[in-house]
């Protein structure tokens, strides 16, 4: 993560605390006590963190941790000789930073699309469409596998939640309107 991004998170937190503390000042005494008790130290800590982030920026670039390599080094210290773990192949790893950003946008698009689908058309319409499109397009499964898995999973979700647990899932704004029209 770049330096700018690291500070962005702190600045975001500072903004949240500041807005919430500012809003709390408009509340009656009893209601603002806790938000102020929590929010003011939050603001102070954010300021401290921003100072620390700036101090770090003057130092060396932070290297991303390799947990497995770290574990190998610790193990070597304990047993007194080199230790090598096995290798895990990453399936479908992004080639470069550009590819990673593109995938991030696409994956968020899928998530946002699914949520919008649920809100507009409900769970039972959106689940199979989301599963099929993700499995086929993003996970790279074949049509046969995607359709089979979608059918099995959608049926399983229906029987577990609607029949088994008796949960009434959201039907969606548009589907709800259509259902109301049909019902007269």
């Amino acid at each position, binding site marked *: 993560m770049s330096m700018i991004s690291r500070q*962005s*998170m702190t600045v*975001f*937190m500072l903004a*949240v605390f500041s807005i*919430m503390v500012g*809003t709390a000042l408009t*509340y*009656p005494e*009893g*209601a603002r006590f*806790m*938000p102020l008790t*929590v929010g003011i130290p*939050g603001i102070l*800590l954010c300021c401290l*963190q921003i100072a620390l982030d700036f101090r770090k920026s003057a130092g060396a670039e932070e290297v991303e941790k390799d*947990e*497995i390599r770290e*574990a190998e080094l*610790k*193990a070597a*210290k*304990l*047993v*007194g000789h080199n*230790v*090598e*773990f*096995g*290798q*895990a*192949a*990453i*399936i*479908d*790893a992004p080639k470069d930073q550009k590819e*990673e950003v593109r*995938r991030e946008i696409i*994956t968020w698009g899928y*998530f946002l699309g*699914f949520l919008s689908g*649920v809100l507009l058309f409900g*769970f039972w319409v959106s689940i199979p469409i*989301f*599963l099929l499109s*993700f499995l086929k397009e*993003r*996970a*790279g*499964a074949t049509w046969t596998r995607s359709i089979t898995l979608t059918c099995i*999973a959608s049926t399983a*979700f229906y029987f*577990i*939640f609607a029949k088994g*647990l008796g*949960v*009434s*899932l*959201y039907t969606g704004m548009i589907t709800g309107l259509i259902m109301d029209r049909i019902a007269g």
Partner: protein
Amino acid sequence: MFDVMFAALGALVTNPQTMGLMLIAVMIGLIVGATPGIGGRLSIALAIPFVFGMDMTQGAVFLLTMHAVNGTSGQISSIMFGVPGDGDDAATTIDGYPMAKKGEAGRALGASITASGVGGIIGAIVFAVMIPVLEPIVLAFSPAEFFLLAILGITFIAFLAGGNNIFKGMIVGLFGMMLATVGMDPQTGTARYAGDYLFLWDGVSLVTCVLAIFAVPEMITLAVKGGSIAAISMEGVKFSYKQIFQGVMEVPRHWFLALRTSIIGAMIGMVPGLGGSAAAWLCYGHAVQTSKNPERFGHGAVEGVIAPETASNAKEGGSLLPTLFFGIPGSSGMAVMMGAFLILGIQPGPAMITKNLDLVWTLIWALVVGNLIAVTFLLFITRWVAVLTFINATMLVPFIVVLVVIGAYVNEGQWENLLILLAMSMVGYAMLRANWPRAPFVIGLVLGRIAEESLHKAMDLWGLGFFTRPISLVLIGMIVATIIFAILRSRKPNALDNLQVSS
């Protein structure tokens, strides 16, 4: 106490529904533990939607059993393919993988599975033994101390995030506490930060936030970065049941080591903030130091498999203690578990000893019985569970996302929660990418309401003088000491850091 203890066991094992749920929890826990890309914390968050409508005890037993057996199957890929799933498993890999390379994979798996089960059971026993010791301490606490305990809880869990990240951890914890103030103020009836949005008057949904902060960011990362998978063919690591049995017998052969490392693991679990893998690494080091032939370690010594496995599973029993009695989760997994307990109507705190001791004993027995079932199952089905390591984790993403969205909705049956899910998922993803700890957020959110109630009660009783009560002063001292220690640790890494792999 003994009548409550055995009544709880009787109620657990004679209830076919509860036992059936435990069996399901064990199977899910073992499968999830062996599947790449899904950690124990995530599995609890994902299981939350399924416990709606369940009886409080059955729901808690289901979740705890699932969590407790997660680690038992986690070491399969470490031993067979030398690919540790997490920090706990890394310690097992040091000797487990060389054993597999020497053709002793079955022996290593038999020893690790049995050690894991034994550790889980001894961890539960250590927890049980500590109850009478802790009872007077827990009961001496007043609202003043519970407010300070909430702050201490966040400090500890922020400490868990690592020495360099303590301020970030505290900011995130306070952010959680701040969000806990959203909704109707219990004192004045003011709708804080809710405006005209009625769905916010009851506060921000805990389940939605837990799913958004933990599950969605992990799934998006998995979809973006791709799933890891063992690159070695299973053909090279064949083993027989005879080998597994030989491995099982290694645990009674090294019973004193298993006992010691289990107790150490449970004790480490009781200290919030020590991190998930500290127990496994410390106990591996202990096994090396106390061995008459330390040169065998790293080349396939079975003690090197037994020690970390007993410790890492025993710590689950230990970490349940601060979670249940003080409301301070012993680990980030327990933080999510605590959130789930609250959803089920279980309020951690002194009432667990005075009013819900039967539930406490049921949970202890659930750890014991769950581990026994898991070990028995796993010894027979290891060969097939190992196949899960080859699953392309990216394929799991859409199914988990569907579960997450259903979970966020069924919690309160309000579509507005899906908007909160989206907003908080963005925050959670930003935290993950910026390497900010996320566990303190859940603790803050959980403890926020408790802290506010306690603070108001304490202020009514003693005014600002509650800060000068003896136990309050001790707690304030602990908060200050934790922060100072963390600052010092961030300047100069100590031995503990050397033994911790990021959890």
